[in-house]
């Protein structure tokens, strides 16, 4: 049998990179049976009891994820929101306190350098004056490049602080919020894409109701020195089990959420990636963000290729790197993520295909290791999102 390397760890650890770093919870993961692999420059748990069981547990109860590899940035300074709008197509100036948005970091060609969450929160400057700051969570594998690009792009008035003394946990699943509320009273007052400051036994927490699984849940920024104790307290709740990167990937795939470096890269634009919702109306009208001319033209007349979901016939996973071919076998697209969907019991994928093949119901043909697989374009998410939005409570 060939080496059972995980596909997860292949592309995110460039060979010239230094030794992978350890997360604050490294010993905790090992003590809980985590199988550790390199990912995004860190040693991380790919699974504990097994990807399938962990995946299904998150869909029915709640799972604890360590996502401390991600970059937590705090941006401060006069006009930081306006300045960021040069490279983010969202309405950052209009972002209210404790509100968060999904956004995309763009290069001058409109290519996606990263995808991220940005939140405005209250702050106090060094003279004690109240104001606001922007808290951004960016991908682990791209965080240092993002900082370099932002430093280049933003004026000297803006300060960027990488909070590498903060760990980041996610608790996801239908029972996540009610369970965490037992430890952190008040978190159930949050709705999807809002955030706030909380306290656990004297430890300050920054918590948002958001996530990367399609389920309701929370993302919790916690000081690294307190994270093991907090993770223990979470895991003491019978509803919560630890979940590794493997299930994180299959959950986000079912939820139709793109993974940076796989489904998104500098060659793709927000329109190609079918992330047009990240282009705020006000910003489209002003057309004043990086790559706006190209992005708005694509939005108007359609991109050449587009990210779609695929239901693959049969059980065999068709993974990243497989080709989309036409009737003559010519390559017309590529699979960027794919795998077995535990909730659906079949194989699903994301692919870039020519726009005339992007309508749900269109049949396409995939080739992987010389074998042909039939697939049908499907609307995403594959598994419905269960976010708890404003007004739905």
């Amino acid at each position, binding site marked *: 049998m*060939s080496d059972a390397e995980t596909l997860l760890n292949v592309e995110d650890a460039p060979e010239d990179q230094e030794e992978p770093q350890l997360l604050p919870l490294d010993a905790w993961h090992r003590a809980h049976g985590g199988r550790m692999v390199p990912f995004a420059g860190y040693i991380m748990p790919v699974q504990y009891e097994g990807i399938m069981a962990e995946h299904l547990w998150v869909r029915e109860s709640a799972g604890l994820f360590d996502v401390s590899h991600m970059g937590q940035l705090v941006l401060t300074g006069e006009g930081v929101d306006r300045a960021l709008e040069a490279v983010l197509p969202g309405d950052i100036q209009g972002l209210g306190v404790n509100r968060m948005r999904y956004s995309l970091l763009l290069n001058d060609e409109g290519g996606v350098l990263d995808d991220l969450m940005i939140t405005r929160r209250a702050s106090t400057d060094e003279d004690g004056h109240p104001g606001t700051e922007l808290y951004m969570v960016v991908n682990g594998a791209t965080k240092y490049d993002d900082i370099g690009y932002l430093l280049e792009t933003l004026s000297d008035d803006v300060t960027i602080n990488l909070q590498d003394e903060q760990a980041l946990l996610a608790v996801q699943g239908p029972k996540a919020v009610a369970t965490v509320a037992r430890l952190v009273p008040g978190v159930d007052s949050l709705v999807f894409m809002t955030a706030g400051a909380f306290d656990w036994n004297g430890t300050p927490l920054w918590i948002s109701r958001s996530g990367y699984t399609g389920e309701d849940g929370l993302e919790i920024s916690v000081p690294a020195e307190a994270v093991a104790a907090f993770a223990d307290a979470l895991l003491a709740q019978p509803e919560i089990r630890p979940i590794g990167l493997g299930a994180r990937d299959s959950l986000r795939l079912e939820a139709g959420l793109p993974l940076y470096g796989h489904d998104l890269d500098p060659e793709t634009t927000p329109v190609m990636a079918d992330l047009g919702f990240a282009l705020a109306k006000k910003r489209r009208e002003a057309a004043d963000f990086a790559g706006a001319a190209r992005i708005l033209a694509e939005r108007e007349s359609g991109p050449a290729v587009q990210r779609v979901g695929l239901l693959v016939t049969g059980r065999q*996973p068709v993974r990243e790197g497989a080709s989309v071919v036409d009737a003559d076998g010519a390559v017309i697209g590529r699979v960027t993520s794919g795998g*077995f969907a535990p909730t659906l019991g079949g194989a699903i994928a994301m692919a870039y295909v020519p726009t005339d093949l992007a309508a749900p119901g269109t049949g396409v043909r995939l080739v992987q290791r010389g074998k042909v697989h039939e697939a049908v374009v499907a609307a995403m998410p594959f598994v419905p999102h269960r976010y708890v939005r404003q007004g739905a409570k």
Partner: protein
Amino acid sequence: MRYFTEDHEWIDVDGAIGTVGITDYAQGQLGDIVFVDVPAEGRQLSKGDEAAVVESVKAASDVYTPVSGTVLEGNAALADQPDLVNSDADGEGWFFRITLSDESELEELMDEAAYEAFVAKL
């Protein structure tokens, strides 16, 4: 008599007929198995050929034949129940049966004690 390869296949030999599977250690490393592609009856294989594909949630792996010969049958049960490889890698989760063309090839394989010692060092 059961023999093992360094690639974590096992073969049970009864006369000139062998039954091939992957070891319990291998299924544990792979994790949840969601698909198995077994060779068709009559396929001619040379020792070390890619004979089957096993896909876990994480990754695809090739299964190599430990011996040369002609495939008698693939395990049809794995089409609907690929997780038999997880639950019973040493038994119900076998991959294929093969008629050996050169029994001397068995001499190059490990016995159970040697395989256990090999795995202990991994």
